[in-house]
């Protein structure tokens, strides 16, 4: 099967600044999330995948195309939805989408027909003859998506597709992306700071940090790499119990509900030690379940592992714009 993306030792410099460092990764068709802080290299990677930027070093193949050599052909099979508006004021919705289709190699009549179909699919048929300046934020996002889909690309590159949408609009957009990602032999790369969006749409994730890939693989794989985290529940006075656990070297995060904590055990400590300490402290352990780590936790863990000294605060890490 043809690999969707294959990057081998890709490095890119802007002057003395290294935006991507020796990135090697490969993915089969499917939905892929791209996560990283500001300056992590997401934009550069998008540009390289789109064939608009030639990497300083390394090989790039996307959909079987050698990207630096055949960027124009590649873009005929890729749909790109940028974060910023990228609209052409003065055009009507249907003209904008048809123009995108024509620029992707469609004949004029075909492009017009497809523009109408795509706008109907995205529930913009009532607004298709309106000037695009009059569209709301949500409509503009859908219009951009329509321009991305009009030529039925094999790969979608989506940059913050839910930015600026209200909760209902966001849910609708994610449903739409999930449906698109579910089509056979179609793939998408979703770059966003909202890790929940990635969990909902994507099966694989690439985590970038300072130009390096610090994590890649299926979301389940990334979650599974955290074996020593548990949710602990007990009955009785837990103060001494928790103190004893801390003395053991465990990290205890108090959860909002009573008699319940998130417990990080050191790797060398077996879980039976927890029961032994409970017996010693006179409490009854009612639950010790391995915690299902979400993508956000995995992201912070991987970023922290890449920078042991730097503590990444969840509230700031996700606030990139």
């Amino acid at each position: 099967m043809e690999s969707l993306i294959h990057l081998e030792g890709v490095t890119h410099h802007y002057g003395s600044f290294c935006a991507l460092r020796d990135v090697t990764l490969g993915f089969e068709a499917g939905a892929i999330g791209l996560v990283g802080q500001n300056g992590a290299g997401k934009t550069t990677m998008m540009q390289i995948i789109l064939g608009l930027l030639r990497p300083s070093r390394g090989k790039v193949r996307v959909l079987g195309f050698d990207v630096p050599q055949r960027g124009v052909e590649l873009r005929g099979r890729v749909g790109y939805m940028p974060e910023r508006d990228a609209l052409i004021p003065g055009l009507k919705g249907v003209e904008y989408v048809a123009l995108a289709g024509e620029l992707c190699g469609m004949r004029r009549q075909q492009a017009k027909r497809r523009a109408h179909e795509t706008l109907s699919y995205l529930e913009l048929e009532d607004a298709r003859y309106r000037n695009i300046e009059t569209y709301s934020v949500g409509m503009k996002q859908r219009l951009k998506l329509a321009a991305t889909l009009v030529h039925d690309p094999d790969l979608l590159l989506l940059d913050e597709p839910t930015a600026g949408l209200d909760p209902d609009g966001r849910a609708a957009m994610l449903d739409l992306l999930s449906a698109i990602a579910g089509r056979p032999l179609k793939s998408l790369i979703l770059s966003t700071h909202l890790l929940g969006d990635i969990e909902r749409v994507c099966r694989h994730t690439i985590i970038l940090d300072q130009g390096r890939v610090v994590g890649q693989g299926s979301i389940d794989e990334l979650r599974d790499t955290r074996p020593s985290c548990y949710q602990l529940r007990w009955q009785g006075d837990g103060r001494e119990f928790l103190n004893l656990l801390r003395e053991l070297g465990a990290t205890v995060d108090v959860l909002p509900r009573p008699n319940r904590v998130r417990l990080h055990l050191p790797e060398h400590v077996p879980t039976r030690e927890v029961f032994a300490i409970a017996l010693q402290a006179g409490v009854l352990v009612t639950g010790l379940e391995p915690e299902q780590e979400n993508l956000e936790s995995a992201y912070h863990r991987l970023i922290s592992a890449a920078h042991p000294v730097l503590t990444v605060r969840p509230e700031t890490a996700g606030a990139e714009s």
Partner: protein
Amino acid sequence: MSTLSSGYREFSEAPRSAWWGCWTIARASLGLVFRRKLFWILFAFASLAFLFLFAVIYFRATLLANMPDAAPFVERLFERASGNGETYRDFMVGQEVITVIILAFAGSILVGRDHQQGGMIFFLSRRIHLFHYLVGKLLAVGGLVLLVTTLPALVLYIQFGYLTEDTLGYFKENWRIAVAIVSFGSVMAVVLSLVLLATGSWMQKSVPLVLSWICIFLIMPPIAGFLRHIYDDRRWLLLNLWWDIRLIGQWCFGTVRERHAEILPYASIVVIAVCVVSLLVAIPKIRAVKVA
């Protein structure tokens, strides 16, 4: 085509050559300009000279047909509309001010807004190369120039020939005039397109763009004239880009004056240099567009 359960229809047909993208970009860009009322107002002004000359040629032909005895008087009276190269050259040169005004106002729509409002991202992420984008934009601007200068001049040329007694003879004898009209128009189109592309890439809003064009086409000519007067050297006139283009136009029509003949090569060099510099200025700005 098959219909998916989600309502999305697949599409798979061989794409056209990326070169079609040039025409698509030119057509879409011109369409945006044509939607502006201001353009049609300016175009109406631009058409005044054409309509006037059209009427004069018609009037002259009518007088010549009805009063053959007064032919020498009529020909002397309408000397400027006698159907030789100078008639069309003067018309095209006379259109230069309105052409500059139209381009200065259309520049932000044709070029500036692509940089300012993300249109460039839209274009460059499609199945075209940067080169196709440039050609498309140059076609659009060149099309406007040709619409205001060359096309009306060709219509007047055809009208004059049609109203002449020996129509075929006029066209046979003066075919070089048609070539000269097209050549002069092409030079204007290429130079002005490149200058607009360069200035529009850097000054994307209307006001700075208009000001920059005022500097190039309204302020530079008197400065050039002043320096020429001070130093008594015609080469200072080369600073006036319109003058350089006009000189090349005179060469196209074979009407270069003797005293200007020696400056003609310099004017050509200046015009070529302006084109090259414009491209060199525009391309990095376009390449620097951040796609994501």
